[in-house]
């Protein structure tokens, strides 16, 4: 009974505000996830300026719970309106919407929230009981190994996220490049500042986040004039009680699929950059592959909803593991959480389990509270959320988001410059989306860039043979080889899939 999670639970519940922000974050996450076009990343980006005013635990809890709840929230419009609220809900839509058309939306939503909570709970337990164990080993790594891990993460993030390897890698390198603008961390020489004084402190994380995730989405929505007035209609519910709840038979049939999908989602979640979107499709495909004769895949198979939801939610706890043990986020939400750690002066990495034990385990306890909260809200309230989403059209939501973003970014330093940066990155995000570059890769690299440079410089200071130090450490060699293998496999897959001469 002396596990630090108990200390975490005590820390969380001794602060009324942290509990309040956990519940508020869950509610916002559910609504944001359920609103098509408003991603968890956008919601978190808007909340980050607010987190400056909160104590570290409340700020972390707020951001963490939004990301977790949004992952389930995305399934609500996917099931009700055939429009996934988040990219990771795309697989849920395949079997979820046909169930709605049969009047079984109640069953689909309840199965979605049950599978989400089950997957998320397993993943959170792994985080609680496994992360510190992994951290014991990663804490022994020196700068050369850490730099090799960064390089591997950049290669994986760049080549795996998105449709094109080359555009993914370009996005990653651009992220690193923009992250090093400002004063050199050792010599304080200005670098790439173009003699603009404001740039000497670097490009702020919040204006960049708001620009690429929020403003760019607003630009996309305003450019997509046809979708602005689109109305969403709720289908009529079936009068049969069994169609509006998860029966024991449904649960018994879905349990093996849920367990397998949770395992897959957890493993995928621990890999940097791969994320929930990949997990849900892998799990869905595997569940469909092991079909039984009585299954109705493609026509509203409840096991498909369970597989996709268990997988995409089991990513959310697992992708915090690389963030806390290596300082490398597994997803954009984890990267944003990493940003909040930095804002509050906490250094992410394996040492955090020793230096900030109560905060870290308080955060994990908030994760458990979030799962319980969204399960209750989702099981009994998904219909209400669906009705709210159906009533509020996109053309009303975005103007408010835009004005809120401007005020939020202006409030940081009371300067117009940050608003300019936000708008500039809004255009960057807009073009990235239009030209199919990878925004997640860009933003993760932007956050990790300075850490990578620091590790490289420390490694070279330790070395007597210059860059040869990376070939003298077995673990560093392992990670470099891993990067080579990953990119080789991706290139091989791309060549096999694409016609000759196609770029990327």
């Amino acid at each position: 009974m002396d596990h630090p999670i108990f200390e975490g639970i005590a820390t969380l519940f001794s602060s009324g505000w942290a509990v309040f922000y956990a519940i508020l974050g869950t509610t916002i996450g559910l609504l944001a996830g359920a609103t098509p076009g408003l991603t968890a990343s956008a919601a978190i980006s808007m909340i980050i300026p607010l987190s400056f005013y909160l104590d570290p635990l409340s700020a972390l809890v707020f951001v963490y719970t939004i990301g977790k709840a949004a992952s389930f929230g995305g399934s609500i419009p996917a099931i009700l309106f055939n429009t996934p609220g988040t990219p990771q809900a795309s697989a849920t839509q395949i079997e979820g919407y046909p169930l709605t058309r049969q009047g079984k939306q109640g069953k689909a939503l309840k199965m979605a929230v049950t599978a989400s909570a089950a997957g998320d709970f397993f993943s959170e337990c792994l985080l609680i009981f496994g992360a510190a164990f992994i951290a014991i080993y990663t804490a022994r790594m020196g700068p050369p190994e850490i730099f090799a891990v960064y390089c591997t993460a950049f290669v994986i993030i760049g080549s795996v996220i998105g449709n094109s390897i080359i555009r993914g890698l370009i996005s990653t390198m651009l992220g690193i490049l923009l992250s090093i603008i400002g004063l050199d961390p050792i010599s304080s020489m200005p670098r790439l500042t173009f003699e603009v004084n404001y740039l000497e402190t670097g490009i702020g994380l919040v204006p960049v986040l708001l620009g690429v995730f929020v403003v760019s989405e607003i630009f996309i929505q305003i450019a997509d004039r046809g979708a602005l007035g689109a109305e969403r209609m709720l289908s009529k519910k079936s009068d049969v009680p069994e169609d509006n709840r998860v029966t024991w038979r449904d649960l018994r049939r879905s349990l093996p699929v849920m367990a397998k999908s949770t395992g897959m989602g957890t493993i995928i979640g621990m890999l940097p950059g791969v994320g929930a979107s990949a997990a849900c499709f892998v799990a869905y495909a595997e569940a469909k592959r092991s079909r039984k004769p009585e299954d109705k895949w493609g026509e509203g198979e409840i096991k498909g909803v369970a597989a996709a939801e268990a997988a995409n939610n089991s990513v959310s706890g697992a992708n915090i593991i690389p963030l806390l043990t290596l300082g490398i986020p597994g997803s954009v939400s984890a990267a944003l959480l990493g940003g909040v750690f930095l804002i509050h002066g906490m250094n992410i990495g394996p040492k955090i389990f020793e230096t900030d034990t109560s905060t870290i385990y308080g955060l994990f306890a908030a994760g458990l509270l979030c799962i319980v909260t969204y399960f209750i809200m989702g099981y009994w309230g998904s219909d209400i959320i669906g009705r709210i989403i159906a009533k509020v059209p996109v053309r009303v939501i975005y103007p408010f988001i835009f004005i809120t973003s401007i005020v939020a970014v202006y409030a940081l330093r009371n300067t117009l410059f940050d608003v300019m940066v936000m708008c500039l990155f809004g255009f960057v995000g807009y073009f990235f989306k239009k030209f199919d570059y990878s925004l997640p890769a860009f933003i993760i690299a932007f956050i990790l860039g300075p850490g990578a440079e620091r590790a490289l410089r420390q490694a070279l200071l330790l070395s007597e043979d210059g860059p040869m130090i990376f070939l003298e450490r077995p673990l560093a060699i392992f990670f470099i080889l891993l990067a080579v293998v990953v990119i080789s496999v991706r290139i091989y897959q791309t060549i096999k899939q694409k016609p000759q001469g196609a770029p990327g």
Partner: protein
Amino acid sequence: MTARRDLISAAVMLVTTLIFFWAAFEIEDDPFGVGMQPNVFPLAVLSILTALILIMLAGAAIQARHEKAQAEKSNELKIFFLWVIPMAAIAFIYLGLINLFQYLLPTMLALSACLAIFGNRGIKWLVVIPVVAAILYYVIFFGIFRLLEPTGMLLEYDNFYLFGPMQKFLRV
């Protein structure tokens, strides 16, 4: 994604990279520094980036030769200038107005303009809701979160008398 679009985006990226290269060569050496000089990491990143862009450019150029010339009647540029640029302009005009009239009035106007651009029409959407929402924003940001309101150059007022008792009551 057509090769033509790849060519355009790669060309824009290349120009951007060249500008950064020029800036990277301007980075001064640290005469007393040990280890890596300040410009090494940026130059390394830029070199890899340039190599990747050139690979993409070459791939797109090869594909463009095989691709039949398509008459793309894209109106993306028109949409961009007609809707996206005005939306961004609202942000700057809004902030300019904040510096002149403080927060409340410009927020009402900016919200109304944004709602109009997004296709909302009528007194309810363009007048009532912006006014109510701006007041709510004002109370939340400046009353509860106690943000510092910029001083207006043409219209100046102090919100302490508005929010002081409320802040005392809420203990914020």
